[in-house]
């Protein structure tokens, strides 16, 4: 008996291994844990959030791979759902499609214009709670309804999401053309002491027409002085900053002279949108997002025009090559700015705070409205003082416009209060209230050409 027992004990490891293998094989072939695999999942590429009465209307653009041998066939569709929260709306989408809308690949969240009156973080709450949505997802606001925008055909790609992702790309961010942000950045800036955040503002237009009723090749910094975007306004307009504004000027090397923004278009092409959904025959749309929507305390405060957005991008982002327009001696110059360094500093001097906006870059002539000689073409880096001054002036003007917007709308996009908290914590409680109105603003714009 003992021998039999020991024999069994000796064989026990083999028996256990066989049993485990049998169970694994069973699980392998049965394979039904209620998990959602590749056959059952839908790839949600983007979500659009709009208001529909009391509820939220969520539109998901879903990539639906079609059976094919070489995997070339992917169509897409838009499915909408309604609910009190984004989670409810997605649940409705699930019930409509039978696909579980995982947000693993959702890289774009669009917020419709009609959400202006809602607290931003009420809308985005779901994404911060969901374990599977990525904080790296891009967020943008759009003119009109987000759901409609997602349905528009575009020449750039067969899927609207991909088109929009292109204009929110890192490449454009590094050219100061767009203020690309993701969920993390928005939350960080909102939950900081500045309590403000921003996101790109997307506008669409039929190909060939300008966006938002404006002319293509729009110029900012005309000689008129216009108010910047108010809370209900739409479509930003440019302004030049001559003379005193809110906040004081100090330092700086600018001189008079208008400048204009080079219209760097992100869209081109004329092919219509491909794919399913009956989008054949619709006119292709172009998307631009050179404006920026601003939020303070989660509430929409306005849209920065292109000039203001440009200044914001110069200061906030790591810029590789930005193009700015300058006028000098009756000619229009497109100046490329490299080695760009934008900084904000808060200094306490004689009991008063000075907010310094510093910007330096190396300039290069990218284009000029005159026929140049080969010698002049070879001297792209050699820029006259006038042109440099005009460039500096344009940038300063843009920065001033931005500051004006921030002060007027009490929207601390530049993170001044946050700096006060981080560097002057002991003074924070004293100066916190109405801080933006109390500070002096200094501009230090250093543009240099080749020597």
């Amino acid at each position, binding site marked *: 008996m003992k021998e039999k027992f020991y024999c069994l004990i000796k064989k026990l490891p083999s028996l256990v291994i066989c049993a485990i293998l049998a169970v694994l094989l*069973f699980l392998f072939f049965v394979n039904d844990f209620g998990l959602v695999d590749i056959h059952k999942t839908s790839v949600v590429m983007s979500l659009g959030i709009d208001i529909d009465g009391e509820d939220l209307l969520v539109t998901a653009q879903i990539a639906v791979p079609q059976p094919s041998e070489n995997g070339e066939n992917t169509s897409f569709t838009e499915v909408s759902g309604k609910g009190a929260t984004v989670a409810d709306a997605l649940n409705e989408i699930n019930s409509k499609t039978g696909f579980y809308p995982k947000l693993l690949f959702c890289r774009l969240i669009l917020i419709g214009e009609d959400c202006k009156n809602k607290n931003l973080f009420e809308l985005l709450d779901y994404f911060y709670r969901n374990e599977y949505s990525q904080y790296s997802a891009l967020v943008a606001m759009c003119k009109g309804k987000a759901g409609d925008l997602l349905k528009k055909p575009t020449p750039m790609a067969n899927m609207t999401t991909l088109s929009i992702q292109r204009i929110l790309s890192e490449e454009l961010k590094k050219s100061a053309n767009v203020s690309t942000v993701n969920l993390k950045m928005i939350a960080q800036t909102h939950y900081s002491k500045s309590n403000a955040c921003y996101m790109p503002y997307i506008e669409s237009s039929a190909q060939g027409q300008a966006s938002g009723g404006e002319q293509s090749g729009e110029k900012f910094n005309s000689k008129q002085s216009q108010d910047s975007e108010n809370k209900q306004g739409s479509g930003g307009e440019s302004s030049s900053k001559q003379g005193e504004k809110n906040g004081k000027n100090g330092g700086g090397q600018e001189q008079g002279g208008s400048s204009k923004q080079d219209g760097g278009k992100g869209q081109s092409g004329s092919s219509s949108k491909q794919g399913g959904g009956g989008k054949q025959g619709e006119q292709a749309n172009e998307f631009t997002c050179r404006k920026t929507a601003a939020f303070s305390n989660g509430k929409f405060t306005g849209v920065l025009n292109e000039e203001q957005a440009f200044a914001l991008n110069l200061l906030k982002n790591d810029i590789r090559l930005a193009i700015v327009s300058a006028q000098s001696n009756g000619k229009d110059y497109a100046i490329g700015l490299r080695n760009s360094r934008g900084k904000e500093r808060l200094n306490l001097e004689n009991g008063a705070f000075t907010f310094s906006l510093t910007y330096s870059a190396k300039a290069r002539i990218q284009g000029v409205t005159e026929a140049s000689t080969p010698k002049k073409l070879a001297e792209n880096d050699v820029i006259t003082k006038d042109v440099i001054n005009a460039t500096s002036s344009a940038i300063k003007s843009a920065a001033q416009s931005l500051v004006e917007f921030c002060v007027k709308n009490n929207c601390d996009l530049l993170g001044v209060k946050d700096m006060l908290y981080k560097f002057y914590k002991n003074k924070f409680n004293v100066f916190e209230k109405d801080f933006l109105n109390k500070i002096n603003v200094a501009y230090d714009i250093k543009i240099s050409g080749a020597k």
Partner: protein
Amino acid sequence: MANLDARIKEVKSILTSQDILVFEFVSEGGKRFAAIYADGVADKVTLGELVVKPLRAVRKDDVIKVIKRLLASPEVKDGKDTNSAVEEISDGNAALFIDGESEFFIIGLKKPPGRTVAEPPTQIAVKGPREGFTEDIKTNLGLIRKRIKTPNLQIKNIKVGKQSQTNVAICYIQGICKKGLAEKVEEQILNKEIDVIPDSSYIARFLTKKPRSLFKRSATSEKPDIFCAKVSEGRVGIIVDGSPIALTVPYMLIEDFQSGEDYYIESHRATIIRLLRLLSLLVGILLPAFYIAAQLFKIQLIPLKLLLKISSSVSGIPLSPSIEMFLTLFVLEVLNEASIRMPKYVGLALSVVGALVLGDTAVKAGIISTPAIIIVAFSAICLYTVPDLIETTTTLRWLYLIVAGSVGTFGIVLLSALIICYLISERSYGVPLVSPFAPLILSDLKDGAFKSGIFSLSKRPKVLKTQNKVRLKIK
């Protein structure tokens, strides 16, 4: 005085088989001789030239010493008794009996049919020696002696197998090999009783305490240069008569990632190739598993564009991803096996069937997807970068596939941890299987995952605990 007929009868009563031939001849002087040998194994020409011809001159009164001196064969031994005569005859030698003499001779005539020395099919070298072992132990020992000429080279011959009486040679270099290792090996071989040893793989099973383990405990080689290099490092080599595969112990897993060519080419190139082999092995084992696990449990592993393509490819497939991969691997195994077994003449036709019909047509029919075919094919190719481990790695690939399809990516991790835990506790004659990584022996790492130059490898592997540690000295 022994009667010749009686002696012949005695031997034939033991060796009753009809291929045991008796050649009786008479010298010119009238002395009768009888040579008993096994047909097909003994070299009759040598018998005739070196034994029969010279003995024609024997006179009737010549004594045994004179007769022995007349024999021209260099391999002449005095016979002991009938049983030893039977053994020698079975071995391929001839027993020469003389009428009226109780003594007899054993003439070395062994020349079993066999291959010539050629490049082994399993270990091909672009640069380096191309000789390979054959099935004849004497040839193999000759190839070893050709390379290791030191008198310290010890070759101990033992017979294994009750019926086969297979010659097994244990080779080691005295003064280098760890003391007692060769004796331990011999003891492990001899304490097993078996009928027949058809191949060295049987001996390999004898050398381990865990013969059913997934991982072997002895290295194999078909090339004498590799064998000699390992023996000179301090290992014990085992040559088995009838098998071209030589064994060496102790064994480390990293040996299978080293090829002979690594030592003949530039060390930096050898390092790259070794790392490539390691990476290929990992890819070959894990790729099908990860592919399944990603589709079933974690699609985030797949980049979006690739996911859309894969999704598009698999969306029409009626089978679940795991069963699809299982079937594809099964087809691959069948093709693999059939290609080895099938006759040469139908090989081409069946290859076409395999490749086109089973591969291409199945994809067109929507039974399996293109990515599955690609992954399985690539995995198969990757595993063949380390051919010595092919049996282990193909089994592991199946295991990983089953685990990935049932438990998912966590199963892959757990199985990897389990295998690591198993490997780090296993030894081969006192040497841990995963040396020099665990335990970490920094000096031995120079010939581990990467290959240092020859002058950096002046000491023998520390883990082998050799008597003589230095193998390269610069004067």
